[in-house]
């Protein structure tokens, strides 16, 4: 009797230990959460509809992840520094529309590399403006970026234009059609993985390296974690804030151009309203809205998860109103998971 009970206790102890170890381990690897949800989503969608298991589907999801992914990397860096940015879609829309019109009307033969260069500079400039307002006015980042978002959008629609622009520059059009590899889909059509996907890979690698191996990366996490301590340690908090917003702006500008090349048209109304899905992707990937945490791998997995959910639910025949609800449930689930994680890992 006694032996059984003690062994039972032991088992309980072991289970508890394993569970605790799991929580501690997950706390250090928050990317496990979006990965888990991706696997679950893929397995369930694939079980219901075998058409899911196609290379072309993978290509479509990766292709659809590029613009959101670039936005998310910017948001990740801003969140890690303890800020918040909701103006990146407005920056992207402003850059893409203004730049497309400029290239068509002034320098129609401009190559794709200088176009991306200009887009990056324009985006970084607009982002830096956010950073300056946040750090020198000491205003909350959310309020500042809501303000700049509205101003940019209003300026764009009032002074630049509202019309859909179909004839994009030939360099942009050609770049959008360039594929790394192509796969043949069910009905015999060719589906390619576009070259602009490499830009996301490049941006993710640079961001990962910057956050992990450079001084500025350490400064960003320090400022995001405890700004007063960071200041005493000698980090220049204001410069760090300007930098993160400029970096997010740069990525947004590049993302805007990719959106146009992929879409083969420039619409100044595009991208508005996609901010929250991007922020959700970053949070699903383990970054904290309160700053000081987050990883590139987690963010990328969060982006893939959001794209997956918003694209493949059609395959299972889920009505469009429910697709948003499922996305909401995932985000809520993520919030609960991470707060639970914090509590248990602290113990």
């Amino acid at each position, binding site marked *: 009797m006694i032996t059984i009970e003690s062994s039972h206790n032991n088992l309980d102890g072991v289970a508890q230990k394993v569970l605790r170890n799991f929580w501690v381990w997950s706390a250090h690897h928050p990317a496990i959460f979006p990965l888990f949800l991706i696997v679950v989503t893929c397995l369930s969608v694939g079980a219901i509809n075998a058409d899911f298991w196609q290379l072309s589907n993978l290509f479509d999801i990766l292709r659809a992840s590029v613009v959101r992914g670039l936005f998310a990397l910017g948001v990740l860096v801003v969140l890690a520094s303890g800020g918040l940015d909701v103006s990146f879609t407005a920056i992207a829309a402003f850059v893409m529309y203004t730049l497309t019109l400029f290239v068509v009307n002034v320098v129609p033969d401009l190559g794709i590399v200088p176009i991306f260069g200009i887009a990056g500079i324009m985006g970084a400039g607009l982002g830096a403006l956010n950073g300056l307002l946040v750090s020198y006015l000491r205003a909350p980042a959310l309020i500042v970026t809501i303000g700049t978002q509205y101003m940019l959008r209003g300026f764009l629609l009032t002074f630049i234009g509202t*019309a859909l622009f*179909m004839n994009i520059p030939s360099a942009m059009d050609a770049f959008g059609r360039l594929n790394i590899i192509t796969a043949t*889909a069910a009905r015999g*059509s060719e589906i390619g993985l576009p070259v602009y996907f490499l830009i996301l890979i490049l941006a993710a690698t640079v961001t990962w390296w910057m956050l992990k191996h450079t001084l500025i990366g350490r400064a960003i996490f320090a400022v995001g974690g405890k700004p007063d301590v960071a200041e005493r340690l000698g980090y220049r908090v204001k410069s760090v804030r300007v930098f993160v917003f400029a970096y997010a702006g740069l990525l947004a500008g590049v993302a805007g151009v990719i959106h146009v090349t992929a879409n083969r*048209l420039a*619409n100044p109304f595009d991208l508005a309203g996609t901010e929250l899905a991007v922020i959700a992707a970053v949070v699903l990937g383990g970054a904290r809205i309160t700053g000081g945490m987050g990883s590139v791998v987690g963010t990328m997995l969060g982006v893939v998860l959001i794209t997956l959910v918003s694209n493949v639910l059609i395959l299972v025949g889920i*009505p469009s109103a429910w697709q948003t609800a499922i996305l909401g449930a995932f985000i809520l689930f993520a919030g609960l998971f991470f707060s639970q994680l914090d509590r248990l890992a602290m113990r």
Partner: protein
Amino acid sequence: MLKNNNLLLASFVASVAMLGTGAATAQDDKEVVTVVKVTGENWFTRMEEGVTLYGEEHDGIGTRQVGPARADAAQQAAIIEDLISQEVDALAIVPMDPSTLEGVLRRAMGRGIAVITHEADSLQNTQLNLEAFDNAEFGAHFAEDIAECMGHEGQWTSFVGSLGSLTHVQWADGGEEYMAQFPEMELVSPKNESFNDANRAYELAKEILRAYPDIKGFQGGSAIDVIGIGRAVEEAGLEDETCVYGLGLPQDTSAYLESGAVDGIAFWDPKDAGYVMNILADKFLNGEEIKTGDDLGVSGYEDVTVTDGPGEGKIVRGQAWVDVDASNWSDYPF
């Protein structure tokens, strides 16, 4: 109700007549001014053609079109205030935001100015509101094209800008209702939300093609849905196997109409809407009543439907959609 309206009309006509005697010394014309959301946009430049044409074709009435330089409800209200103090005879207004104009339009009517509106069936302070068509009928019209193109059998789907865009949802529902008579037509994944983004419409269309490889029919909602759907159809090489119809603008959609990826689009012609608003203003100033079944002499407005609006005024509806396909898109400069 009817009696009341007639009384109002009579007193109104009398007041206009009195005002008219004062103005007659300066100019013999009745002055009708059309106020649009914004000047310079293709849509309203086209509307101006209709407005000007009506004035040229009819003696005793002067027509012109004005509008703010940017789409701004407050600026539009300011322009209307100006026109009220100039004592024009009638205003034909395409409101930017109907609810913000209630006050200024009530004042205009109080001064004896006739108020005609367009695309504002929720507006209380208007005497006649013109709608190009009934939304359910417009949706049914697309469904009719799709069903015919598909030979009345197979899978089809519908798109909306968003589930919150009332008119788009009405078009999708109208289409679905029409299709109910064909048992062989199967609606799959209805009301996909494109969020007015051609890229989103493209991604959704691709996913739908994957999920339902035999799908043939697509009904677009927002004006750029057909562009996104067309691109997906074109990439899949299914131009001949699919039937894509929806709201669209000729110039924007032209490439896909040419390739056959989009089979047809429809819209309402702002030129006709501008012209008909001025007909309504003219008739109203002459004290003529518009009744269901009236022929206004413009294509699409030959058999109008008149219903009571939310306020004292009435809503006049036409069936004024214009069908455009590969053969005639170049007739429309927008």
